[in-house]
């Protein structure tokens, strides 16, 4: 296991330039692009000049760029930057909304994997039949379906016509243990809240998940079919292995690249979460971002953009670790 910690350290070091770059870009967006940051932060064209001056002083917006950058990083680390619109430190806002987005992403991933992997296996088994074609079409539909449009259709069926989901608020259990409401509800045995959470989240997660599942299925199917033609499988068959054992070899080898897809799909899930949260009125990070843009709340825009980027970077790190655990060739 010493290898893993060395690997983590090494990987962590490569993260630093990336994080730095992310900070730079965020800085660019929030401080450099606006012609007059103070005025922009104060609300744009309709800003009160006094507020603008106050903000300029507080966040050192009149100083040279490198100084501004220094103060930005410091402010981020100490959570000293506040949203002018809501008068709260941005990270407070972010962390309050975080569980919602994380739950959405989590449920989506679970559904996507749960449906995607069997679909991929079935498509490979029943190659060139109507099942295979439909799964392929479903994967293509998944990439071209406008989520914001489909969401409304689903709401029509499952909320307006059938009382199967909620569109308001986010249920939370009485106390916070892990920070993730759904887990807390299970731990506390708070089953009412648990089912309320499921009722709230299942539709948006199902929508995103089932679309993503199509992509996973298609990729798994192609990898499986390619691998089934390989010498490795031929040799396994020539050993007289029962079909299930042969499949074990095929699956394990094919799932490895799929893991990368699942992991990196998480990043785009977060992006898609922005739209989903808007359509389904989920008060998560995505919604926060949109509201911030609507209100021209620059500090929050900076905060959420940065936060999203960090999540993606962490996810890719986790995917790398999982990869090294499954594939002995990558072990260190």
């Amino acid at each position: 296991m010493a290898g893993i910690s060395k690997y983590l350290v090494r990987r962590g070091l490569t993260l630093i330039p990336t994080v730095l770059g992310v900070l730079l870009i965020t800085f660019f967006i929030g401080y450099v692009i606006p012609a007059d940051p103070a005025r922009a932060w104060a609300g744009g064209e309709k800003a009160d000049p006094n507020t603008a001056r106050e903000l300029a002083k507080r966040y050192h917006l009149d100083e040279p760029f490198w100084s501004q950058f220094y103060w930005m990083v410091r402010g981020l680390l100490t959570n000293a930057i506040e949203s002018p619109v809501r008068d709260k430190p941005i990270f407070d806002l972010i962390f309050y909304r975080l569980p919602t987005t994380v739950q959405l992403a989590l449920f989506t991933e679970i559904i996507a994997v749960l449906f995607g992997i069997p679909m991929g296996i079935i498509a490979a088994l029943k190659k060139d039949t109507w099942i295979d074609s439909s799964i392929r079409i479903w994967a293509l539909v998944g990439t071209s379906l406008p989520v914001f449009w489909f969401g409304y259709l689903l709401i029509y069926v499952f909320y307006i016509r059938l009382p199967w989901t909620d569109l308001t608020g986010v249920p939370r259990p009485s106390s916070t243990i892990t920070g993730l409401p759904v887990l807390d509800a299970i731990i506390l045995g708070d089953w009412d809240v648990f089912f309320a959470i499921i009722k709230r989240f299942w539709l948006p997660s199902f929508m995103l998940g089932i679309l993503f599942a199509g992509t996973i299925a298609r990729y798994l199917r192609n990898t499986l079919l390619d691998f089934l033609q390989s010498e490795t499988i031929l040799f396994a068959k020539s050993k007289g292995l029962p079909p299930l054992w042969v499949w074990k070899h095929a699956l394990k080898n094919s799932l490895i690249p799929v893991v990368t897809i699942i992991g990196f799909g998480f990043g785009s899930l977060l992006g898609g979460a922005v739209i989903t949260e808007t359509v389904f009125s989920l008060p998560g990070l995505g919604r926060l971002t949109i509201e911030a843009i609507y209100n021209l709340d620059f500090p929050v825009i900076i905060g959420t953009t940065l936060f999203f980027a960090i999540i993606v970077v962490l996810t890719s790190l986790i995917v790398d670790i999982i990869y090294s655990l499954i594939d002995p060739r990558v072990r260190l």
Partner: protein
Amino acid sequence: MGVWELIARGLDRISFGIVDTVVFIIDHIKPGWSAKNKTKVDEWKLMFYAFNRSPLGVLGLFLIIIFLLMGIFGPMIAPYKYNEYPAQFLGDLKNSQPGAHGFILGTEIYGRDLFSMLLYGARMSLILTVLTIALSAPIGVTLGLISGYYGGKIDELIMRITDIFYAFPGLVLAIALAAVLPERLRDIVLTNDLLKKFLLVLFAGAERDAGNIAPFVSVILALVVVGWPGYTRLVRGVVLSVKENVYVEAARALGVSNFSIIRKHILPNVASIILVVLTFDLGGIVILGAALSFLGVGAQDPFTDWGKLVYVGSRFFPNYYWLVLYPGLTLFIVGLGWTFFGDAIRDVLDPQTRRRIEFGVKEEVSKLDILPSIGVIGIFLTLIWTGFDAWDVLVPLTLVVYLMLSGIMYKVLEIIVNNIDLRYKPICLVSVIPVLWSAFKVHLVGGLILSGLLVLTYIPSILKAGGGSQ
């Protein structure tokens, strides 16, 4: 299948004709070219042949052509201009239904004809997409070529930068940029006369709305920033693998300049993958652009594209459903067209996939395979007909899961039991019993129909298994 074959053959004639014409022209410029490159020409024809035989690809192409026509000619043939508000004076009937008062698809909230707006939307999407790709693809590809070919520190640097951009979820970065840029760009657009005229022509806009064109430019820039890393990564990968080829080494040893090597050896290999990515990107940008408008950062009044129509119309959903339904539907169909087309192109260009294409040994899609799909659709229709409300939530849910997994259950059982002559799948049936029980409990006729349809989904596997060994 006869119709598709006819269409394919017709397309063959058109596409081969195009190839022949092109070859003829090249021959005119460079005499003797066609003789030397006969295999290449044959390859092209084989690729067209393969593409013409992909129903999805052909369908996609058809949809794309419609999109292009809509985009180019839309604003000219639209019954009403985008800044005409014919229904404005209809008062309450501002949002009239499709068909009312002669508006084919109804009107939107400001009183404009929805159908015309859809056509204008096509123009917005088209221009947005073309301009974005025109900027992001060259940047991305060039960086990828440099990074892959020269390697070393340059490669590291470019890859680092790409990683940084990749760290942002695409939509989030695009939104942030699209929100922040317009202010800066507005002045640039208004003061630069040439740019202003150029944009107005492209977006079919009127002079007085020039101030509101800046957001479009921001969207384009935002999408370019989000889009170029994709090309760079992909191109770099291809370059790295081609670089290892011996003939590249040989060319270098002979002293051929780097530029020529890139041009003659590396670019052709890169070309096919760029083409595939380009096609998918074109579809993706249409949807991404619409998504940005939906979130409020794209088109600004009075310019409206499909996304904005949904954004505005969502407030009145579902009463004035046409405001959301038709723009979204158009967007979906266009996106689908690009995706189908891109998928077919990828199949055609990827030598590995081409190897997999089999000629004449296609597993027969027997009529037996259609029965389950009829059964599945029928089950859903029955559930809707008997009224979802009357059922336990668990019933339809279990059915959906069962239907999706029943394919697997059969296979797993088959493998475990190791007996291909399995005539029944009794264990699968067990899972359906609670479903049927609640079905009958709730709605007798519905339950009967449901059981019949479930049997329908079983018949093929029973027949096939009983029919003999594999």
